[in-house]
């Protein structure tokens, strides 16, 4: 059972991450006070990791582990929760030019939910596409807090959420072990499995939560620094 879930992260199953799932879990166990994450959703790039079975790890670490996908569409990247055989038969997740409207409609019809991630990001985020094309039908919520965002990218999402009445969620988008759970989503209800997650995401009652430390930058001046001996 989990109320606070990191809805967006990549394990070594993704092409650009080397993080084993167990390393994520050990990191969370160690950082429990700072990042009270109760569930992880592995959103592997352009694939669904059908073979992976994380039940033993779930039991060992007491953290819910769910599987999902991050795919690429003509309206930017989307997270697909509740992936099943029908969805995989209908869409080739390796295709980096999926039709977003089709994806949203069909995934919903087949029992899942497709939600835009990092909408404030250039090219692969929803906002830029909304400036050039009609808005999508059937979008329920967007990732309003993403651990990989640059300055300004998440700030742009507030206007989108307000204008379209979208729900907002968060995820770390971690590719490195130590970034797991820095951004997450808090639900009003307990989530026990992927069906409940899809249902909760569809109906609302959740919000992004930010566990990033507010770190003070070192108060040194450039003149006070040396680059190293011999310089």
């Amino acid at each position, binding site marked *: 059972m989990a109320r606070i879930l990191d809805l967006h992260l990549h394990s070594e199953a993704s092409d650009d991450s080397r993080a084993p799932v167990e*390393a994520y879990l050990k990191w969370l166990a160690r950082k429990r006070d700072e990042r009270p994450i109760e569930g992880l959703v592995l959103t592997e790039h352009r694939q669904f990791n059908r073979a992976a079975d994380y039940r033993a790890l779930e039991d060992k670490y007491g953290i819910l582990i769910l599987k999902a996908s991050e795919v690429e569409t003509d309206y930017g990247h989307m997270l697909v929760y509740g992936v099943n055989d029908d969805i995989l038969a209908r869409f080739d997740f390796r295709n980096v030019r999926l039709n977003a409207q089709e994806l949203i409609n069909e995934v919903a019809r087949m029992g899942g939910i497709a939600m835009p991630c990092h909408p404030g990001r250039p090219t692969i985020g929803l906002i830029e596409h909304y400036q050039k094309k009609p808005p999508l039908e059937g979008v329920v919520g967007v990732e309003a807090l993403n651990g990989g965002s640059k300055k300004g990218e998440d700030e742009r999402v507030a206007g989108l959420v307000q204008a379209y009445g979208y729900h907002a969620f968060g995820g770390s988008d971690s590719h490195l072990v130590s970034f797991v759970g820095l951004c997450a989503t808090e639900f009003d209800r307990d989530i026990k499995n992927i069906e409940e997650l899809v249902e909760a995401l569809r109906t609302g009652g959740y919000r992004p939560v930010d566990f990033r430390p507010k770190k003070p*930058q070192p108060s040194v001046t450039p003149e006070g*620094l040396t680059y190293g001996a011999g310089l």
Partner: protein
Amino acid sequence: MNILYFEDIEEGDEIAGLDLFLSKDLVRRYARTANMYFPRFTDDEGARAEGLPGMIAPGVMSMGLLARMISDWNRAATIIRLGTTFRNPVLPDRMIHLRGAITQKNEADHTAECDLWMENDEGERWVVGTATISLPTKL
């Protein structure tokens, strides 16, 4: 001089960070010694002609600085693998912050996996990576 053995480090430990002012002269010096004396790494106008906002530091310079962070932190660590992703052009004439953490220890061969990254003052991670280091043991 700092020497840390395999037994001295724990998963979750931070690697002592480096905060540097990356001047244009330092980037040019690196570009010269690394056979990369190209306009994008040496002058603003040349870089703009290539569509960049100004001169940038070579990705491999960031990689070298991340390796230096490990060497400064622990003289006894030997890097046996270092992987880096250059997510954003590194613009000089500003502070850069190099950071790292030990994420996994492997008892069988006395190696450790590390997360490494370089961020700017805003906390944007311009370069991210991982390394495998080999450490001496007290046994």
